[in-house]
């Protein structure tokens, strides 16, 4: 089990309407335990998963959005967000949660986990993967 593969978890759905966003978080956290090269991408309505200020009391579901802040602790430090998807929805990175991770190789400097990329850049990133799981 010493193989390290490149896993990409691709998220394309809004949260709460379906279970995919929650399950994606679950499996990403598990994948961290396998010490793989893991990143996440947020495309289309998947960008809504990262919106600030989610409050789920009214729909009776658990608010799982705080979990995104914990991803850095599991070495999940690359959350690619497609710029074109944000723009189509009238959103900017300021509407998203402020997610950070601490880089131990850089004197524990705080860095942004969210990386806004163009479609072309994301296409390049996708092409480097060995396993892509879509949610």
């Amino acid at each position, binding site marked *: 089990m010493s193989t390290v593969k490149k896993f990409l978890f691709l998220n394309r759905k809004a949260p709460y309407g*379906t279970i995919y966003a929650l399950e994606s978080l679950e499996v990403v956290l598990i994948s961290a335990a396998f010490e793989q090269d893991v990143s996440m991408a947020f495309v289309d309505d998947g960008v809504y998963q990262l919106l600030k200020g989610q409050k789920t009391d009214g*729909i009776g579901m658990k608010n799982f959005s705080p979990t995104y802040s914990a991803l850095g602790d599991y070495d999940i430090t690359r959350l690619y967000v497609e710029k074109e998807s944000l723009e189509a929805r009238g959103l900017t990175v300021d509407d998203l949660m402020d997610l950070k991770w601490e880089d131990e190789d850089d004197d524990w400097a705080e860095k942004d986990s969210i990386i806004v990329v163009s479609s072309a850049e994301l296409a390049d990133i996708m092409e480097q993967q060995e396993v892509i799981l879509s949610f």
Partner: protein
Amino acid sequence: MKFTVQVNEGPYQHQAADTAQQFVRAALEKGHEIYRVFFYHDGVNNGTRLTVPPQDDRHLQKGWTELAEKHGIDLVICIAAAQRRGIMDPDEAKRQGLDADNIAPGFRISGLGQLIEGGIQSDRTIVFGD
């Protein structure tokens, strides 16, 4: 007013069952009558008593059962959809030669005619699904 509510999706994968349950509760609070909830397609999966969601999550099947117990709501599972998906009451399990059943309290299995009859008898028929 009398409502019939159709639920097309099982619990947890889609929000449909949640919204349907919230709608039923709100309708009762407003003094309306729920004539029937009809579980169709994957909606039949609301009616298994074997679900064990995480402790900090809502328990949709228990929510339905409670609505049936407190308000006498008729919870009907479509028989053909149930057979395809493995939702069985004791009688049906026996008839099919199966060694287990899984229907939850408050639910009953019946035919699609119950949906049409609900539509005829109710002032509004509303569908929740994917």
